[in-house]
């Protein structure tokens, strides 16, 4: 049986000083969730350039001069976009790892070490993000 728990408002000044690992995990999960849903809408908007591109001549598509290919190439040519992609990876990896942690806790697995698994999620997110930087930045310069 679940019970309600009054967390108070996270917006209250200096409230973060009282937070423990579980509360930070909750805040980071919410923050990364907002970023990911915002990105999903942006992602589909950018990919939608494939709709007008599909009407282009075969030769234009083969040369990569269609609006979709050109949009992606232009975006990927910007260093800022590459850096934002690394940020997106970090956000996605944390949400996935912490989400796995939440699924396990929901199943009653690892409840006693939920703080340790949060720190492990953070460290693993950092390691995967740093290891991915060369792949994400390749060709940007």
């Amino acid at each position, binding site marked *: 049986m*679940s019970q309600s*728990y009054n967390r108070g408002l996270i917006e209250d000044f200096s409230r973060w000083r009282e937070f423990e690992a579980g509360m930070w995990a909750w805040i980071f999960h919410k923050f990364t969730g*907002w970023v990911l*849903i915002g990105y999903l*809408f942006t992602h589909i908007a950018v990919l939608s350039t*494939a709709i007008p591109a599909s009407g*282009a001549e075969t030769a234009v598509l083969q040369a990569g001069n269609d609006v979709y290919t050109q949009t992606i190439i232009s975006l990927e040519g910007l260093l800022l976009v590459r850096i934002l*992609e690394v940020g997106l990876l970090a956000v996605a990896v944390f949400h996935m790892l912490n989400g796995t942690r*939440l*699924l396990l806790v929901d199943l009653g697995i690892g409840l006693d070490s939920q703080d340790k698994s949060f720190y492990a999620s953070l460290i693993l997110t950092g390691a995967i993000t740093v290891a991915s930087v060369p792949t994400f930045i390749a060709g940007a310069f």
Partner: protein
Amino acid sequence: MAQRYSSFQQGTRMWLLQRITAGFLLVVLAFHFFLLHFVHHADEVSFLMSSGRMETMSYYSLMVLFLLTATFHGVNGVYNALVNQGLSGTKRTAVKWTLVAASVVLIVQGIRTANAWAGIPLY
């Protein structure tokens, strides 16, 4: 009893669906990132390459299912986060239907895009 930090009311159908879609998204999002950033690189993307993948029925189906589950998981997550912050009454109803409308637009636009790549004349 341990404190629960979940925004969801445990035991409801939406709670279960949020977790089922989470499990599915864990696998498919990892596959998506790996395929489109590590196997192929983002700056090598072209319409014909995307089209080649999407013309395969299994890939097309997986991506449509990916779109549906990601939209549900994301929008339901946002709705529950807002309810958890105290959203109620008429505002809650208005937000709920706005999110439903946004989801429909996102799904329709995503499927139109997938169809454009797959050569399905419904876009």
